[in-house]
C-alpha cells in the first residue's frame, strides 16, 4: 500500500511531468513552423490533457477526450492540412509578421491577471485527486446528470451537431 502522502508525491510528480509536456507541446503548437508538426504537438497536449483528466478522476471525460479529440478532431485537422495543400515541411509564412509584438504582451498580460487572481484566490486550497476519496459511481452519476438535470442541453447538443454536420457538408462540398 502506498501511503497517501506518497501518492500525493507521485501525483505531483506525474502532474508536473505531464504539465511540462503539455506546456511545451502547446508552445510548439503556436510556434512551430511546420503545420504537421504543430498538429502532432497538439496531439501531445490533448493526450496530456486526457492524462490530467484521469488525475482529476474524470475517467469518462478523459476517454471522451481521447476518442473525440485525438481520434476525431486531430484527424479532421490533418485532413484539413492535407486538403488545403499546406506545405509538408517548414513554412515560414505561418505567422503574421511581427504579430508576436501584439500577441506576447496580450498573452502575458492575461497570464499575469489570471495567475494573480488564481494564486490569490485559491492560494493553497487542496483537492482530492484520483485515488483520494471515493470515485465510485462517478460515471453513473455523470449519466444521471446528463439525462436528468442536463437533459435539455444534451438534447440541444444533438441538434447542434446535426446543424453543424449539415452546414459543414454544404459549405465544404464542391459544386
Amino acid at each position, binding site marked *: 500500500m502506498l501511503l497517501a502522502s506518497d501518492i500525493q508525491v507521485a501525483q505531483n510528480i506525474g502532474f508536473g511531468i505531464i504539465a511540462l509536456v503539455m506546456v511545451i507541446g502547446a508552445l510548439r503548437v503556436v510556434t512551430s513552423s511546420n503545420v504537421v508538426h504543430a498538429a502532432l504537438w497538439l496531439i501531445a497536449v490533448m493526450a496530456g490533457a486526457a492524462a490530467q483528466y484521469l488525475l482529476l478522476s474524470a475517467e469518462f471525460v478523459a476517454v471522451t477526450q481521447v476518442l473525440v479529440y485525438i481520434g476525431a478532431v486531430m484527424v479532421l485537422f490533418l485532413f484539413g492540412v492535407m486538403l488545403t495543400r499546406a506545405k509538408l515541411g517548414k513554412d515560414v509564412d505561418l505567422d*503574421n509578421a511581427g*504579430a508576436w509584438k*501584439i*500577441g506576447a*504582451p*496580450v*498573452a502575458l*498580460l*492575461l497570464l*499575469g*491577471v489570471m495567475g*494573480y*487572481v488564481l494564486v*490569490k484566490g485559491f492560494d493553497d486550497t487542496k483537492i482530492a485527486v484520483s485515488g483520494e476519496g471515493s470515485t465510485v459511481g462517478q460515471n453513473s452519476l455523470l449519466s444521471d446528470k446528463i439525462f436528468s438535470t442536463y437533459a435539455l442541453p444534451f438534447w440541444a447538443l444533438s441538434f447542434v451537431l446535426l446543424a453543424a454536420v449539415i452546414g459543414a457538408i454544404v459549405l465544404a462540398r464542391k459544386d
Partner: protein
Amino acid sequence: MLFASETEHEAVAQASGWFLDHAWLIPLIPAIAFFLIIMFGKKLPRGGSEIGIASMLASLVISAGTAYQWIDLVGKTEHAEAVTHSTTWFEIGSLKVGIGSRIDGLAMMMLILVAFISTLVQIYSTEYVRGDRRYTHFFGSLTLFSAGMLTMVLAPNMVQLILGWEIMGLCSFLLIGHWWEERANSEAALKAFWTVRVGDMGLLVGTGILLALFGTLDIGEINAKAAEFTGDHKLLALGAVALFIACIGKSGQFPLHTWLPDAMAGPTPVSSLLHSSTMVVAGVFLVARLYPVFHTGLDINLAGHHFNLIAVIGGITVLIAAGLAFVQNDIKKVLAYSTVSQLGYMMMGLGVGAWMPAVFHIFTHAFFKCCLFLCAGSVAHTGSHHSFDMKKDMGGLRKKMPITFLTWMISTAALCGVPFFSGFFSKDEIIDSAKGNDYKVFFVVGLIGAFMTTAYMTRATYLTFFGKARGGAAHFVNEHEDHSHEPAHDEGHDSDDHHAPVVHGKPLVFAPDDSPWQITVPLIILGALALVAGYLNAAAKPFETDYFHRWLHSSIGVEIPEAPHFEWMNAVPSIALVAAGFIVSLLICKAVFGEGNSPLKGLTQRNAILGGVHKFLVNKYYLDALYEKVIVRGIAHPISAAAYWTNQHILDGIVNAVGKGGKRTGEMVYKYIDQGLVDGVVNGSGTTATHAGGALQPVQSGKVNLYGALLFGAAAVGALVLVLVNS
C-alpha cells in the same frame, strides 16, 4: 384704475359737452378716411383728395367744437381738470391700458392746430401735387399722418401716445420718400425714419422707467405722481433723459437734427406739415405733455441750477441750426434749419421753465412756418420750375408773385420776432423767461438766435424775392414781363443756368401769374394768422391778453414760476438785435447779391487776400468781397461752414456711419462670428466627428488576428482594471 373708471367718467360728464366726450372722433375720422382713400381713392374723380380734405374738415370742426367746449369749461371752473375718456384697450394683469381721449388745454390747442394746418396743407396739395402718379397715396399718407398726430395729441396714456408717434414716423417715411424712384429721396426717408427711431429707443426705455416708477402708463396719473415725486430721483432723471432722447430724435434737436434738412426731399406740403405743426413738434409736445416728469427729473427751476439737459440741448440747437441756415442755397433747407432752430427755442423754453411761452411758440410757429414752407412751395411750383435753389433759380419774384411775397414777408417778420407779429409774443417771452428764471446763458443764446434768425431770413428773402431773377425765375419773370429788361444770362456762375429750363425732359409750363387759388388761399389764411395769432397771449401793453394762458394753464401739471411781467424795455435788446440782424443782413445781401456785381466774381477769383481799410470803406464791391471773403469765408466759413462741415461729416457722418457701421459690423459679425465661430463650432464638431470616425477605421483593419488581439487584449485590460479596483 384711473381710466375707464365709471365714476370719473360720470363726474366729468357733467362738466363736459358732446365734443369733449367725442373727441376720440378727431383722429378716428382721418384714420378711417385713410382706409377709404387707399381702397377707393383711385376710383374717385379727385383721386381721394376729397375724402382727405373732408375728413380733415370734419376733424377740424370737432376740434373747434372741442376747443369751444374746453374754453367754456375753463371759463366755468377755475382749475379745469383734463377730460379723459378711455376704454380698456387691453389688460395684462394689473396693467390696464386704455385708448381714448384726454382733452385739456394743450391737447385742445394742438388739435386745432393740427386739424387746421392739415386741412390747409391738403387743400394746397391738391394743386401742388396735381397729376402726380401717386396722388391718391399721397393724400392717404397725409391723412394718416394727421390721424397719427391727432392720436398722439389726444393720448391719455403712453401707449396711445407711442402709437400716434410711430404712425407719424411711418407716414413721414412714406411722405418724405414719396418720390422714391430717386435714390436720394428714399434715402432721406430712410434716414428720417431711422434717426427718429434711434430716439425712440429712449421712448421705449423711458416708458419702461415710468412704469417702474409709477406703476401706470396713464399720463394724468404719471404727471400727478411726478409732480409730487419723492422716490428714486436718479431713476426719474434717467427716465426723463430717456424720454428726452426720443424728443431729440423727433424734434430734430442737436445732435439728431440731421435728418430734418434731408427730409426736404419730400414734397413741399409734406415739409410744411411736418415742420409746422406735426412730427417735429411731437417731441416738444411730449416734453410739454409730461412736463412734471421732466421738471422734477431734470431739476428745472431748482434754485442754483443754471443748466439742464433740455435747455442746453435746446440752446445749442438754436445756435447751430441758425448758423447752418446761413449757408444754405436751398430755400427749403433754410427753412428746415430755421425750424430746427425754432424747435430749439421751444425746447429751451421748456428747459428754462417757460412752459407757456414755449407752448405758445408751438402755436405761433406753426402758422408762420407752415406759411413759409407753402410760400417756398408756391415759388418753386410757379416761379422757379420746381427748383429750390435760391441762388440759381430765384430772385426778383416779388412783383410777379405778390400774394406769395406778401405772406412770406408777414411770416418772416413773425419768425424773426418783429414786434406785433405773432412770433414776437412767443419768442420774446421765452427769452424773457430765461432771464427771469435765472438762466442767463440761455437768455443770451436766445438773443443771439434772434439776431441770426433775422439775418438768415433776410438773406433768404432777398435772394428769393429781390434782386435779379436768375435761372428758372428769370424764365418765369421774363416770359411775361417785357423782354427789353436786361436778360439774366450774365448772372450765373454756372453755365447750366442758360439752358432752357427742362425738367424730366419736358418743357415747363409756366403759370401766367401767381400760384392758383388752392395755393394762395392757404397762404393768405396762414399769413393772416401769422400776423394775429400772437394776440391770444400778447403780454405786451397795450394788449395784455392771456387767453392762451388761461386755457392751457391746467395742462402744465406742476408748479412753475410765473412768467415775468412783460416790459417793453426788456424786449428792447431782442428787438434791437432783430433790427440789427435785418439791417446788416440786408446790406450785405444787397451788396453781394445786388445788381452790377460782375467785377466781384473776378475780384474774388483773382485775389484771395484782401487788404486795405480805405478800399473797404469806399468800395462797395470790396465790401461784398469782405462779406464773402472775410465774413462768410473768414467767419461764416470757419464757423458756419465748419459747423456745416461738422454737421455733414461728423454728425451726419455719425448717423450715416452708424448705419454703415452697423452694416459693416453686421457683416463682420456675420462673417466671422456667425459663419466662422458659431457655425464653425457646429460644423467643426461635425467634421471632427467624421474625422474621428476616420481615425477609428484602422481598428477595423479587416484582419482577423488583430480583431482577436483586440478581443483578448480588451478582455485582459478590462479584467486587470476591474480586478485591481475591486480587490
